[in-house]
């Protein structure tokens, strides 16, 4: 093992942070980041699926025949997504309603399948957990950051609290679809700019 557990964990936070460095799993990123709360909720749900799926895939990596591996991975991921769906329906109903069809769509989030295929199927369970946690937390933070930008500019609030006072006119462009694309594009630009130095 060339990399230690900490390295596996930390790489998900900056070096390979999903929606920015690996341009994967964009749909939920664009769709649910209208508020910080939704963004983080989605991030946590995805992290849970990512860690569980990574663990199970890694445990079964010597049993799954390589020709049908993608189908097996998808089945494993779908199982955990269903679990998250039912758990959220039971314990976080408002969030469940706000995220709508994007919870079942975690199944087709390329980040999750990508980690199963590229990492978990080749590494020990403990490394796979570290990798899943790192990527998941990186994903959550990115969603939270984009959610913060869009909520503050588009709605004048942060986590539901007023930021600018009553005279602020909300920049509604940011919470609509075009704002999502432009916001993510500019954040990617800033990341590239910092990364280059």
């Amino acid at each position, binding site marked *: 093992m060339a990399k230690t557990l900490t390295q596996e964990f930390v790489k998900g936070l900056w070096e390979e942070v999903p929606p920015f460095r690996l*341009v*994967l*799993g*964009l*749909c939920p*990123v*664009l*769709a649910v980041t209208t508020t910080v709360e939704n963004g983080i909720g989605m991030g946590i749900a995805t992290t849970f699926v990512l860690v569980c799926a990574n663990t199970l895939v890694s445990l079964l990596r010597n049993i799954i025949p390589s020709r049908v591996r*993608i*189908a097996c991975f*998808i*089945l494993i991921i*779908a*199982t955990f*997504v*269903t679990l998250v*769906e*039912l758990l959220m329906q039971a314990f976080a109903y408002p969030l469940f309603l706000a995220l709508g*069809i994007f919870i*079942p*769509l975690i*199944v*087709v*989030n*390329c980040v999750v*399948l990508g980690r199963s295929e590229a990492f978990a199927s080749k590494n020990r369970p403990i490394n796979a957990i570290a990798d899943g946690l790192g990527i998941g937390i990186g994903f959550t933070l990115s969603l939270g950051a984009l959610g913060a930008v869009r909520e503050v500019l588009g709605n004048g609030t942060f986590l539901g609290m007023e930021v600018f006072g009553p005279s602020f006119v909300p920049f509604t462009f940011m919470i*609509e*679809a*075009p*704002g*999502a*694309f*432009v*916001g*993510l*594009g*500019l954040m*990617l*630009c*800033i990341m*590239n*700019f910092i990364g*280059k130095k």
Partner: protein
Amino acid sequence: MGDYIVLIIGSIFINNIILAQYLGACPFLGTTKKMETAVGMGFAVVFVMTMAAIITWVISTFFLTKFGLQYLRTIAFILVIASLVQFVEMFLRKSIPSLYAGLGIFLPLITTNCAVMGVCLININEEFTFIQALVSAISYAIGFGFALILFAGVRERIVLGRVPKPLQDTSIALVTAGVLSMAFFAFRGMA
């Protein structure tokens, strides 16, 4: 009949699957660097999305709802889509090799295209009848292909321009997608 026209226009323009509903953003960015790949992906999606919508509608209505198994929806749908994609791939390779050569590489990518699964879920959530589900799937797929081809055209021009270094590639593509999405935004006045 009027309802169907509203549904068709609504699905292609007003609720465009990529630019207004944010589904299928990965292939939208991944396959639009060249016009040919965008066209190929567009056709592959029309094909798979229509078939997937038909099959998932039947499964959901006649099996899952009938036996009270709605919670298995996610698993059932993804399995249907994954096996459908495999089947279509094998079928095309055997019987229509020319089409396979065109669409071949895009088919496996469709399994993880959230637009396909998204449309199936929308059809069920909206409680569409069979014909409505079919019409909406075809219209959404056309809207998907339409957005892909438009965007590919724009991106082919961007390559020729001088883009600042940090903005290059995906970053400028996203900002452009935002502008395109703004254009589609204008269709909302029609709703």
